[in-house]
């Protein structure tokens, strides 16, 4: 990973949510996923801002869905990881795995 390309904590959360949600990933589901798992309140604006930043780094791709075929159905902006994004996420995740063991309180 090039210098300055470290992923921020929230970026990792968003990418994790994208991995987990797969086809279903768009702003609302990503938001709900992170909120449910982290227990922290998450602003939709922060999700969009992070997704856009990740897309600027080439890690995330968007595609806009057609309006859903129900009354009042609207278009969604789906997001998924690019191969580069997937690699960066895996690397960050495995780095985290290597760093964490033995740090939990009470264990050594």
């Amino acid at each position: 990973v090039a210098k300055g390309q470290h992923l921020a904590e929230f970026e990792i959360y968003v990418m994790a949510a994208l991995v987990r949600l797969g086809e279903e990933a768009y702003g609302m589901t990503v938001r709900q996923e992170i909120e449910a798992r982290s227990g922290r309140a998450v602003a939709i604006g922060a999700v969009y801002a992070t997704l856009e930043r990740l897309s600027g780094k080439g890690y995330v791709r968007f595609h806009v869905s057609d309006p859903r075929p129900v009354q009042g159905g609207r278009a969604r902006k789906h997001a998924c990881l690019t191969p580069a994004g997937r690699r960066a996420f895996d690397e960050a995740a495995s780095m985290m795995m290597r760093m964490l063991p033995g740090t939990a309180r009470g264990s050594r």
Partner: protein
Amino acid sequence: VTPPRLAARLVRWAAGRERARFVLNDLDEEFGQVVRARGRAAAHAWYWRQALSSLLPLAAIRLGGMPRLSARHVRDSLRVFRQSPGMSLSIVTTLALGIGANTAVFSVVDAVLLRPLPYPDAPQLFALWERRPDMPRMSVSLPNFEDYARATAGTAELAAFSRATAVVGQGVSAEELPVERISWNLWQVLGVSPAMGRALTAEDGRRGAEAVAVVSDRFWRERMGGVPGAIGTTVMVDRVARRVIAVLPSAARGLSDYSASAPAGLFLPVPDLGAVMSRGDREVRAVGRLRPDATLLQVQQRLNQVSATLAREFPETNTDVLTATAPLSRDLSRIVRPTLLMVWGAVALIGLIACVNVANLFLVWATGQRRDAAIRLALGASRADLVLGHLVRGVMFGCVGGVAGLLCSVWVRDALVALAPATVIPQIGGVTLNGRVLLMTAGLSMLTGLAASIVPAWQFGRHRLAGGLHESSMAVVGTRAVMRWRGALLTVEVTAAVVLALGAGLLVRSVILLDRTDLGFATDRIVTMGVRLPPLRYGDAEQRIQLFEALAARVRSAPDVHSVAFANQFPMRGGWGGDVLVESPSGPVSGEADLQAVSPDYFSTLGLRLVRGRALTRDDRTGSPGMVVVSQAFVGQFLGGREPLGAVIRRDTGSPPLTIAGVVADVRRDGKFAPVTPQVYLSAYQPELYAATIASIAVRTAGDPMRVLPHVRAALADLDPAALVSGVRTLDEILNASSASLRFHTSLLALLAALALVLTLVGVYGVVHYVVAQRTREIGLRLALGATRGHVLGVAVRAGMGPVAAGVLIGCAAAAGASRVLTALLFETTRYDPVMFILVAGGVGTVAAIAAYVPARRAAAANPVSALRGD
């Protein structure tokens, strides 16, 4: 159920239309889920929380990423001080003016309205008044007070006090000083125990108890040498020896000091005279302290029961008499509050104008730096970074301006304190610079700086500036938005200036009308005073008159004395009115008039013009027929065009007849704010016809009337060593005091309005100057192509005058609403005075037109060739 529209609009504003579409779609979808799961109210709250917490990240992404505040921003903003010192100086000066004025006034507001009263647990204290449908606030009668105190004993403790003056000391050193007569428990209720000596007890309040006094710290230091031995010594108060039993702590303040110009030095416990006084004489004010778990409402309920009982038992004095209670701090500041808030509002407008002017200057600056900004963007800076740069600069200037303003404010505050008459703002002496004031100044400075830089920051964050690179000064592209903003800012500024100018105009008009108002009697070089005679020796009216006549004769022989008069009371010092009956062919007509017993010299001393007949003479004395002099208003009101001379009036159906001997010009007996009332002047030598006690003299002199005072004192001491002079005041002094508040607020508002106009002038000049500078080449081209200079002039002036006209209109409308706060100060002027509106609108318009014309003329005079050469 639809999501809150305003929240959605905020999101759209922060994110930009395109990005907002998906954000809002998601929010709406989840909103539906939340409504189903948790109901409508919770969903609304949820939506708002989401929207608000999304604003910052969305705005940041829109501007190209969340900027980091770095030392570079601060360095860059500091550099402008060096790069454009002139502009920086004008920004700092403008900010200093705005912030300084606000800080100064806030420190007064803080001292008078915000600081807690200097009594422990002050929120538990409340004021108690009596009221009647026609009088919302009256003093309390002592017998009623004692009933109230007994009835509320379970929920509160009540104490009474009243302000008075007393002659303190003896012989030559005797002096009249303000004192407070108090119930024995007043200081206990206020929670203040003496610094020295013993507290008053119920024993001190019994009839026949030893006469004692509590003194203030200041009285103790200044008049008793500040020695501990002073406790137990006696002071003479109104010829009674009182033993000093306690000295109060230096921070203690008498309650009556809050509405007086000088603090009371002596506190005299008054025996409980409730049993022997009339319930109709309302002579005391009351204060109470709630018991720990009681509420004001409970107290008020008990009081209402008492009022009902009293109204039944004493219908003559207590019908319709109720009580009113209010928290003490609110009650004490109720007189200054409205005008102080008015002044605060006025300086807030100055602050607004200053902020707008600085925003304008920032905008000019930012426009000048468009190419610079474009280069930075091209080199990879984010627009958010540029916006942050603007904001940092704004806050920096705010801080520098704030420091300068703070220095300014100390000076302004001292000037305010020195100029404000003590009667206008009694607590003004306590004004200090404390933490709260500093905090307010710091907050205001940052906010002003931030507010002033928001418009340019937003403006330049919004537009793509890439165009700036290949933009020459010929192009006017992109300046249209800037112009719109400058126009809007100018409108705000003009609106504020018009509001201030109208307020000042109404007050100035009031002062002019007040000055033009004729009192009907002279006030210059006249000193008036009361003479207190020992009552036992002067029980007989004849004896009093002899003493006054002897006194007048001696004073008359003093140097520079023109004339000396005596009467029961002189104008503007109180007096009595009463019913009179006037005989007429169709039976007696009755009505109310002011009555006074006067010496023959009264008319010449006060310069009362005799219109018909004769004045009173020394021969109008006991034994001769009753003669009176009346005023023209009396003739108009009671005689209806009949011949006044020789007409007969009576005080009552059975009382002796009084024949009108002369008619004098009208007077406003109670000062300029009071109406002309009918007057009846009776002879002081006929006490059997009108039994008012002769108690005052007036001396008219050639020079300073106060110089005659030693002569009066000496003459009086010679005639009766036990007699005392009291309430020495010149009529001019009384007259000026009555208009002090109006004059003070008028000069203050006029000053602020002038400041506002100057700042606005600068604003208008700036806008037109900017337009002209931006369009020099265009103007040159137009001139070269045959446009007339008049046409060019018109275009430039119009650019400035549009926003001005809008500001004048909005300002007039706003002033019509805001002038409500002035009503209490205005004199014979309605707050909708159309003349004033036209004058101010025309005045501000003209001033603005001149400010626009100066730079516009320069443009029109431009040489087309040199204008086109440019770049």
